[in-house]
Structures are given as C-alpha cells and as structure tokens.
C-alpha cells in the first residue's frame, strides 16, 4: 500500500481557516445559520470549524450531529448491519440555513441520506455542503459541495483518509494507493 500525504498539518490548519472565512462571507454572524456534522467523521470537521468560527466571531454557533444510518440506501445489501451513532439536534431547523459537514465527498450517497435525515427535523431555507476532501469524478449521484478543502483525483481502488490530531495523533490527509500486485 503506497501512502501519500495530500495535506500536512500546516496546510490542514490553513484549509480549516479558509473554509471558516468562506462560511463567514456567506453567513455573516450566523444568526440564521446552523452547522450540522454527519456522523461519524463529519463531527470532527464540525468541531474544528466551530471552534475556529467562535474564535473569530466571539459568539456561540449553533451546532448539531446527524446520524444517517436509517436513511442509507444499502440496508440489507451489507453483510453486517451498521450500528447507528447518536443524533443530537436540539434546535429547530425550520427557516434556517443549514451547512452540512463531512470529511470526504465520494459517491454522494452519504450526503443523499443526510439530506433525507435532515428533513425529519423540519424544512430549512437552504442547505449547503462543506467537505474537507472532494474526490471528484467518483460521484454516483448529482451532488456537489459548496465549500471544499481540497479537490483530489483518485481511482476507485484508492482510499482517502482525513486524520485528526484528537484521534490519530496528527492533522493530515493521506491518499492510500494499493500496490499493483495487491
């Protein structure tokens, strides 16, 4: 397995900062905007962006976690059922702008499920998508992100992993390519 670092910790931090400023450009003081991370790995993106935004704006940003297990389109197609994670949305999304967050945008199926899951909490004015990595040319559905950390061109056999200081020990994005004989 060949390993290639796409974003090192310095670029990782710059990317988070840039995404935060892009959000502020569009959402001003976030009085009508809520941020929602998709379980499990989107929560890491959310936590980091939230603390960055709060440091800049000096106010609390409304955030929630959304689990999409029950909305997936591959139920009964997997060997093992997926075990749900927690959903914590204790606010109303009716008439709010929602920014969904995830680490990697790949086939678009997770985001499709996320949109369905989100609508169980009301009718938002607008939904946007923020992802750290966009694996373009790999989409199964017509879904694109509004805020992208880094766009990468990958093969289906490759794997992109967004790693976090809190979990893996270092902020970085790694591209894993299988060896030819694997």
């Amino acid at each position: 397995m060949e390993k290639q670092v796409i974003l090192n910790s310095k670029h990782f931090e710059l990317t988070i900062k840039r995404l935060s400023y892009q959000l502020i450009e569009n959402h001003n003081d976030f009085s009508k905007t809520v941020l929602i991370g998709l379980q499990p790995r989107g929560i890491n993106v959310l936590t980091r962006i939230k603390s960055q935004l709060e440091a800049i704006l000096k106010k609390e940003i409304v955030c929630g976690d959304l689990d999409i297990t029950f909305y997936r389109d591959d139920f009964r197609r997997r060997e093992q059922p997926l075990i749900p994670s927690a959903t914590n949305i204790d606010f109303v999304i009716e008439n709010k702008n929602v920014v969904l967050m995830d680490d990697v945008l790949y086939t678009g199926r997770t985001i499709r499920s996320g949109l369905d899951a989100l609508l169980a909490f009301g009718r938002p004015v607008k939904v946007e998508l923020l992802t750290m990595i966009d694996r373009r040319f790999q989409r199964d559905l017509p879904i694109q992100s509004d805020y992208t950390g880094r766009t990468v061109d990958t093969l289906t056999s490759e794997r992109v992993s967004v790693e976090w200081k809190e979990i893996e020990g270092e902020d970085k994005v790694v591209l894993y390519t299988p060896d030819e004989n694997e």
Partner: protein
Amino acid sequence: MNSLSVDDLTGIKDLTRADIDLIFKTADAFKEVINRPIKKVPSLRDITIANLFFENSTRTRLSFELAEKRLSADVVNFSAASSSVKKGETLIDTVNNILSMKVDMVIMRHPNPGAAKFLSERIDAKVINAGDGTHEHPTQALLDSYSIRERLGDVAGKKVVIVGDILHSRVALSNIYCLQKLGAEVMVCGPTTLMPRYIHELGVIVEHDLKKALEWCDVANMLRIQLERQEMKYFPSLREYSMQYGLTKDILDGLSKKIIVMHPGPINRGVEITSDVADSKQAIILQQVENGVAIRMAVIYLLASQIKR
C-alpha cells in the same frame, strides 16, 4: 458484533448478552428518532410484516404496529377472533396462506407455549414472539430491562423482584432470563399456589412476604393476576390477594429506600397496585410503554437486516 446471533426472536433464553446489548444500543438511536418532529425512518420500506394475534392484545399490538410503521414497513394485521381459525384452520395453514402473499416477517401472539418456536422452524420468514401462552414474551422483558437501565444507569448488580402470578406469567419467565443475563439479582414473590414448583432451579430467590421482598429490592415489577389463564382457584378472593400482595402507597412510603415500580400492563388498579402508586413518581409504567416502541423497532430492524435481497 453488529448482528444478532439468532435468526428469529422466539425467547430471551436463546439470546446472548451481546445480543441484548446490541438491541439496547440500537434502541437508543430509535428512542431519539421517535422523539423527532417526523418520527419515521425509511429503512424497512421494502419489507412486509404480518401481525398475527391469536390472542387479545392492545398495548403490544399497537406498540408493534407503531414500531413497524415508524420503520416504513408495510403492515398487515390478523386477529383470530375475526378469521378462519374459528372455522378450524391449523396454525401452519393460516401462516402459509399469509406467507404466500410474500410476507417477510411475522409477529405472533399465540395461546400455546412454543408456538413461535414451532413456526420459526417451519417457515422462512422471520418470526418475533409477541407472547406464547405462559412461556415467553421477549420484547416485554427487553423493554423492562431497558427501562431499568435508563432509570438506574445499569442493570448489572441491581435487585429486582417480580411480584404476583409467576405461574401463568410469560413476562416473569422472560424477565428472569433477561435480568440474569444482564447481571441483576432476581427474586420472585407471590402466594405458593402461584409459584411454579421448580422455579428455584432458575437461580431466583423465592419470597412469600411482600414487605420483605420490597425492602430487599431496587425495582419491583408488579404483575397482573391472569384470571383468564386460571382454570381453578389459586387464592380465596381477589380482595385477599390484594391485602397480601397488593402494593399500596403506605407500603411504598414505609420502605427504607425509594424503589422503582414497574408494571407490564394492563393494570388492575386496586388489585396488584393501587392508583396512587401507579400514578406516583416512583412508577415508570408509561416510560415502559414509550421504550416498548423503541425496543421493538430495534428488534425488527436488526432481524430485517438479515433478510437478504
């Protein structure tokens, strides 16, 4: 482990500790779902479930039906009172007829012990036992333990007394298995005539004095006297039973600690439990009902995930 070790839920006896933990974890997620503005998820939209009730039921049937609908399953209902069973059709014939309409899962309540097991061995559809005679009522035991876990944080190490008609109660047997698998200590309390002869072989403590039992326990599960299953007199009168084994507010307040009171319903107010106890803060009877939907959603979801396309 992400899937159940069993193909059908016929009784708690066949479940492992890991199975019960998995059901509880999944139920946690469904409990959140049923408190959302839109209480429905699309997971089971291509699954058809038949509810076969060969015996009367209000709560369990409603609870299963709600659970199925909140998972977006298609539901067909059947009750023995208004069916061909009265015309002499056998169980297997009835079920096979329903299955030829392409049903994926059967929820069955039946007056004969072992009916669910019998069925599960003969049909391909998933079977969930919603009570088979005096044998087992697995989803009730799961929701009881889940409610204890919710209120007390954990079931392990807790002392639970089951009071009343142990002889005729499927809730008692399933509860004993479930609580013991989760590490609780179980006591049964009731008149000698309503105690199965070899009950101690299940590893439970047997007590005939209600006050002693309540002093010992953290949780009291008060069972209903099942007059419909009693073919002879097991005690002189309901009044006498209620004097000895009925839980009143005076008894509850006289205890040295605050215990939790549970009841699987339907309540005979004034017999096994008085109204002021049933409506007190120590009773978690309505929470049990709410948790019942979440638990049944979890069981149905986990079993449905085993049905391959």
